[in-house]
């Protein structure tokens, strides 16, 4: 066991997701070249465009506190969930919980990441609460949501004007596809024409690239192939995100 470990070390490593172009570009947009996160940042983009890749990479790099909003949550739930992420089980009134959250954000200097923020951007109370967290902690907070999130937030002028960095999710690049192939389709050399086709039909969505790489991997294993080109792949359909066509 130990011997294999030593032999494999270094040779078999995969590139961290944070090194993907689409993640690095967003992190740089948010954090700037000096690496300091701004107060309030918003990351927005269509489903499947790697927003959660970015969120996870940021949470891991900065030991961030990550919560994913649900539509049923009210202010208190959000605060309790954030505290749980901080490793604290606490009760109390909303202002008391807010104090605890702000205090820990400020002293730990770890960012807060709220995913699916669209659910917050429906109610005045929730938006105001997140602004309170920001005002009381003066810490880095990243909000993540769908493409329409910046427009939705315009309704709250005082909130909107406090956002220091707006980052749009980035489309998947061919360089990204090559790195993803090492993760989702290991041991198979994918010809350039097929890789380019994958990026083309993905229409920017990194999720589609991953799903199709898995598809390629499965077929190559079944057929015992260690390389594959567009010609070899043939007509077998790829996942494009469209609903299936009618079959007659």
């Amino acid at each position: 066991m130990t011997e294999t470990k030593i032999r494999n070390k270094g040779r078999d490593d995969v590139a961290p997701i944070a090194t993907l172009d689409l993640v690095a570009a967003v992190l740089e947009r948010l954090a700037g070249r000096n690496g300091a996160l701004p107060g309030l940042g918003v990351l927005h983009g269509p489903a499947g465009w790697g927003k959660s890749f970015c969120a996870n990479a940021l949470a891991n790099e900065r030991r961030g506190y990550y919560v994913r909003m649900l539509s049923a949550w009210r202010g208190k739930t959000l605060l309790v969930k954030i505290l749980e992420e901080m490793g604290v089980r606490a009760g109390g009134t909303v202002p008391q919980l807010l104090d605890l959250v702000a205090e820990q954000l400020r002293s730990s200097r770890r960012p807060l990441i709220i995913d699916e923020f669209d659910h917050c951007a429906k109610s005045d109370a929730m938006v105001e609460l997140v602004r309170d967290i920001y005002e009381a902690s003066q810490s880095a907070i990243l909000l993540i949501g769908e493409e329409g999130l910046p427009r939705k937030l315009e309704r709250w002028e005082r909130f909107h004007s406090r956002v220091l960095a707006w980052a749009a999710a980035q489309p998947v690049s061919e360089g990204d596809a090559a790195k993803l192939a090492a993760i989702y389709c290991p041991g198979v050399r994918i010809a350039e024409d097929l890789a380019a086709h994958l990026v083309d039909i993905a229409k920017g969505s990194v999720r589609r690239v991953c799903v199709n790489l898995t598809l390629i991997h499965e077929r190559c294993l079944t057929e015992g192939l260690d390389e594959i080109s567009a010609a070899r792949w043939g007509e077998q359909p790829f996942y494009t995100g469209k609903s299936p066509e009618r079959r007659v």
Partner: protein
Amino acid sequence: MAHGRKPAHIELSGGKGPRQRVWDAIRRRRGAEFDLLDVNPGDVPRDTVRDYVLSLTRAGHLEAVGACGGPHDRRRYRLANDAGLEAPRVRRDGTPVTQGLAQEQMWRTLRRHTGDINARELAAHAGTSAAPVSPVAATDYLRNLHTAGYLVVTAEGRGAGRGGVAARYRLRAESNTGARAPMVCRSRAIYDPNLGRIVWHEPVTEEDAIYGR
């Protein structure tokens, strides 16, 4: 505090080691001076408290008050740079300890991930510049968590090396015990700090006592 109120004191829930309890005691004395005896929770060896206070001072979290020199026990300290609830993980020379970060990152990734995952994907998503995660380390961690009952296998692995298929796992909803990562300890046991207990250890038999291991 911005509003001039004294903040309520909060502490980590779950299991706590001696250093965490010393740190809690230090934070309870924010804004005041203290000596080693003040921050000793009572059951922690004096050397442990002294070492940790020294490490924190070198890391810049504490500052010594008054003249230097004289025995450590008499020296007084003050919290200079708070780091929040969690006891800073620092070595004696004040540098940060990175041990354990990889497991923390893998656990965070597993909790956040929807759907199933294999070791390679986990390594890629959990690795950072400060604490890279190799597929071998991810395989180990997944296997250990599975042994301790945290994960369900969604697709069995088969074969090995090239042409082999890695097993896929998913975190059980009820096993999402909390933010702190279950740690695989050197003694082949898994400790869950959220629950504050050992959740799995290597089976022992009487022969281990007779023949050693």
